[in-house]
């Protein structure tokens, strides 16, 4: 007859699955809300660098993700675009992932409309080209030959925003929102290291730890990791803003926190049962 602690240690994983599902569904359905405390770190570094850019700077924003990582990266795209456009920084956007183009376009158009910015003057979406790192290298020498037309098929030669950019070196900063390969590492290797342009990154929380070494070396100047990074940025952008637009990252954080706590609770329970069992076995010896 198995004791309680034994049963607890070998709990059917389907029970864990059910509890996790409930801990996400309930807070979302009930619309819980929790405040986000901000601590200095890669998110604030990223914010500070963008904040320090003068109006009129050129930023390349690359949407290197697809719908499967939207929950984490789309909120970042919104917060970053809002910050950049509010500061009158010009955005040239593109995508190393085919599905990134339309996701990026959704963000750019909606933020641009809400702030009254003008396509081709304040921002442009160049679209997607295959090639990853190779493509970046080619952009290093000439962007207009890589992207002769934008996403909608208009010639980039006629666009005021493209007057000042011929190659990657003409950008003041490159930001890649990246869900994997090609993404941030490709930008670091093929653009940052080669042409000495500051690279900022946004990534899924899972890949964030592997980018820390790049932060340490300065190859990456700031990093938004996962929904937490997005919520940090969203919070930072909203500081001092009247009637901030509704965010997408902050509400999800509540559900995430609850589920997160539930997992920690499971780990604690697992250890209690493990230690209790060990003690019992030790007693028999």
């Amino acid at each position: 007859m198995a004791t309680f602690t034994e049963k607890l240690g070998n709990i059917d994983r389907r029970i864990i699955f059910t509890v996790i599902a409930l801990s996400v569904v309930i807070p979302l359905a009930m619309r819980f809300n929790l405040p986000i405390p901000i601590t200095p770190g890669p998110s604030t570094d990223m914010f500070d660098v963008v904040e320090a850019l003068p109006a009129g700077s050129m930023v390349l924003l690359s949407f290197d993700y697809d719908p499967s990582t939207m929950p984490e990266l789309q909120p970042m795209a919104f917060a970053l675009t809002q910050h950049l456009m509010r500061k009158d920084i010009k955005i040239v956007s593109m995508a190393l992932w085919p599905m990134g183009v339309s996701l990026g376009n959704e963000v750019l158009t909606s933020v641009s409309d809400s702030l009254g910015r003008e396509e081709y003057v304040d921002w442009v979406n160049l679209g997607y080209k295959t090639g990853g790192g190779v493509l970046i290298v080619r952009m290093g020498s000439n962007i207009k030959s890589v992207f002769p037309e934008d996403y909608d098929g208009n010639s980039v030669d006629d666009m005021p925003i493209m007057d000042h950019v011929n190659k990657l070196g003409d950008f003041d900063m490159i930001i890649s929102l990246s869900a994997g390969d090609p993404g941030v590492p490709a930008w670091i290797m093929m653009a940052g290291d080669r042409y000495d342009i500051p690279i900022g990154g946004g990534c899924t929380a899972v890949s964030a730890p592997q980018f820390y070494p790049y932060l340490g070396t300065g190859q990456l100047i700031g990093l938004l990791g996962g929904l937490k990074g997005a919520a940090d940025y969203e919070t930072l952008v909203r500081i001092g803003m009247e009637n901030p637009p509704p965010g997408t990252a902050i509400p999800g954080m509540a559900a995430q926190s609850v589920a997160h706590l539930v997992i920690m609770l499971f780990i604690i329970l697992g250890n209690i049962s493990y230690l209790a069992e060990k003690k019992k076995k030790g007693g028999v010896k």
Partner: protein
Amino acid sequence: MRRILFVLPLLVFTGVIFAQSGGIASGDDGDCFIQSLTAEDAPNDAGGGIDLTWTVSAHVTEPDSIVLERLDEDGVWSSIGTILPVDGSRTDEELSNGQEYTYRLVSFYGGIPGALSVEAGAVPKKQWIHTGRIGMLILLTIISLVIFYFIEQGKRGKDLYIRRIAGLTAVEDAVGRATEMGRPVLYIPGIMDMDDIQTIASMVILGRVAMKTAEYGSSLLVPTCRAVVMSVAQETVKESYLQMGRPDAYQKGNINYITDDQFGYAAGVDGIMIREKPAAIFMLGTFYAESLILAETGRSVGAIQIAGTAMPSQIPFFIAACDYTLIGEELFAASAYLSKEPKLLGSLRGQDVAKLFFMIVIVIGVLAATIGEAWGPAARVSDFLKTITSVG
């Protein structure tokens, strides 16, 4: 101690650092908003580029805009771009190598051109060596030579030791267990293509695992995410079965392509796991987020799991869900360990020497930098080490 002998020349040879400067033409003009204009050949390119930099005066009225002009072959100045009136730089691209180009900046006040800047010219050239990468080239060459040297030593029959790697001692047991239980062995070679070095390493290990399954007579399933990997896997496994004298037992149909899609592949392999209930699962190669989807499902069907990847972000999940995990470089050591082939063992020793070299560089560099905060000459040593390891 032999190894130290190899590290020393490495340290000595790396002392060659080059610096190169281009042709400069600049000048001063008291009345002009543009203080100086410099033109030089863009460094480290295939030619066709000229870097232009300029500074502006704080005392002269700021113009509305400045226009960069280039002198055409027929002696006419034409605009190649309008620029904000601040200090700046610009690279003119797609020029012909070997031809001289001359530039000037024109300040515009209310649409009317004002004072002209000095003219500056340069000749674009292609470079035959990337100056920022010379240190790296030397290091890479020496490390390569060291690796070749030890491969040669191995081939000549020098006895080369390799330490125990836990996950690999279990390969035989895992395959044996599958045979006893009458269940298949599942081999997952990651989700990247054959151009990925981890996939290549995985194919070499697959050859070894296939020899074991041929020997024990258990069936081997290899679902792949890339068509090229499928065909290489087929050849590799066939060859192994042939070498073990069991060509009859080779089943080409067990090595299939599923889909190029990351999660489509995960769904398909999960399906295989729960239906075929393999007794042993190998996951070796490049993995991304699907790592834990596969490893947890494999665990739920009670398989012995041996995983290995050099993807730092996925190693923790394999450690949590698999019985044995090859961490990083261990994946590349696996083929040497399993085959005990002299050339592979030699290569592994070469890698060790390279790591030893980096460790020495780090230790000396850190000590020198620390002492260097108080004593200048030590700082020069650490600066030197930082320079040779810098990436241009």
